[in-house]
């Protein structure tokens, strides 16, 4: 039986989330950025699970499943985009891919 206080659990999730955020802000490589987003997604899911346990409800787990679905789609699309971006720009540097500004 886990007796770790729920605050600590959430703090753990929060640290993961902010690590993801840092990664997202620091990395210029699109693959790493997508990875960082995954970290953040996952930590959000973690909070749901913590909440599910905290309230003793299955809903949090259901939410995690949805997060999973969304993540799967997001990654599939994101990676396909990265592929196209790489073929088009020959680089993965997100700062160089700023054609949207026009």
């Amino acid at each position, binding site marked *: 039986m886990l007796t770790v206080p729920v605050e600590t659990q959430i703090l753990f999730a929060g640290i993961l989330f902010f690590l993801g955020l840092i990664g997202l*802000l620091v990395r*210029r490589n699109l693959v790493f*950025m997508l990875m960082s987003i995954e970290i953040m997604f996952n930590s959000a899911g973690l909070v749901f699970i913590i909440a599910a346990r905290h309230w003793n409800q299955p809903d949090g787990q259901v939410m995690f499943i949805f997060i999973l679905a969304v993540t799967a789609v997001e990654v599939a699309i994101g990676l396909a985009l990265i592929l196209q971006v790489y073929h088009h720009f020959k680089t993965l540097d*997100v*700062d160089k*891919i*700023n*054609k*949207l*500004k026009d």
Partner: protein
Amino acid sequence: MTNLIVLIPALPLLSFLILVLFGGKLSRKVAGWIGAGSIGVAALLTIIVGISFIKSLPETKSYSVVIWQWLHVGNLTANIAFRLDSLSLVFIFVITFVGFLIHIYSIGFMANDEGFTRFFAYMNLFVSSMLILVLADNILLMYLGWEGVGLCSYLLIGFLYKEPANGAAARKAFIITRIGDTAMIIGIFILFLSFGTFNIQDIMHLASAKWAIGSSLAVITAALLLGGALGKSAQLPLQTWLPDAMAGPSPVSALIHAATMVTAGVYLIARTNVLFSLAPIVQTIIAIIGALTLLIAGFSALAQHDLKRILAYSTISQIGYMFLALGVGAYSAAIFHFMIHAFFKALLFLAAGVVILVLNEEHDIFKMGGLRKRMPVVFWTFLIGSASLSALPLITADFYSKDAILWFAFSSNSGGMVLWFAGIIGAFLTALYSFRMIFITFFGEAKTEPTFNAGKLMTVPLIILATLSVIGGFIELPTSMGNFHLFSNLVNNTLPNIAIKNVEQLEWLFQLISALIASIGIYLAYRFYFKKPAYIEAFNHSRLNHFFEKGFGFDKVYDVLFVKPIVWLAEIDKKDIFDQLNISISRLAIWGNHFLSIAQNGKLRWYLLSFAIGIAFILTLMLTK
């Protein structure tokens, strides 16, 4: 019998349709004879109708035939209906008869032109429109004819369309007359709204019943109608189109710009005389305009080099006489002068046409000369025409008509010495420039060789018209000379009699003066242009002469006052200011977009960072509150 008047305009119209629809398939000969023949039949019908009309003058002194109801909206009713009275009878006679002669002439004249059928189609349409104009029962139908003749005039002036100058002249004619027409239609609105009908007869009755003499509405309406008349008849402020209109073929000038259409203004004023009598001021203005016009045109004619332009100015001048007559209330004199003028001016134009054609499109009289021997028929007819124009006493028809006008200008209630004096100077000028033409063109040494002789088709109408120019005057003799009033008796069935000051016994004196003036004019012409003294040469190169030649600079003034500003306005706003305004909205949006897109630099991490900073800010704010 009277129903035949429907056929009079219908025949030329039918001919027009035939020529338009099948013109390409008809041979020139057939086309020409259809064109001329329809007018001929119409002329025949006119005579039949006219005789029967005069023989059995109806009670109302007019016949009217309703063909179909044109418009019926609310209280607005307009019919396609014709009305025959003595005034219109004179007009349709002149139109069909002179028109027929000119058509015959045209067959010869236009023989080699590529637009032969087109020419006859236009001419027929013109005759038809003109007949509608004069026969119209209501003012709206008259307006239809009015605009129709304007259109035909436009088309015929621009008949030789390949020369841009002709097109410009045509356009000028159309636009200037259109200005007058617009004034006229406003006048028509007022008439309709005041009396609730378009019928001329009814309007006249109602006007005299409802409007007081000199009432503002009457004056305005009369002035507006006068505007139309001025435009069509090339009177003073709007006269500039007529000299340019000579760009058309000579028969056109003869028929439209001398005999018929330009006198439509005269017809209009005569037709709506009641209105003008209700507006004495306007009538005086008419007289003044007429006087001024005849003087200005006379001086201008004196300085022209182009044979047809001389005749054109002369036409303006002669119509000025008619206006003078109308202005003083001498309607019958005006109409009489119209008829006589139609004969001799058509004659002059046709003869001039022959000269020009024979001399291979040479218009400049100073390049002609010595034609007397070469083409005697033309010379003699032209001489008769010129004599008539300069009102050679006793033997020419114009002497009688012009004399009547001059007499009434003086003796009429609204006339006076000044008007008479202007008229007499005009008469002098007329004689001078008429014989200037004769002497320069037909006397002296030959400068250009004629290429061929005019055929019978062209000379026979000349002879007929010359005859008419001489004998036409005898149907109306002044009181002092036989007192024979066949014409005015006829016309006065419709038109009011003139009110005359009590100075009747002086009439012979005035006739003598005018006869003398005409003779002096002819003599001086002989002195100046046959003998050719040096001072005339000097005068020919003077600035005054140039000023006269340019028609007193009206064109230039109008150009500066109206044409240039309008063109400038059009050019400067070609792109449509509102468009620019509306585009500026989108410009604003684009500018704003550029401004805002500084922040949108496409750097994803920049967005993310701002996003994260925003979240941090908000969260911190919320939690540390």
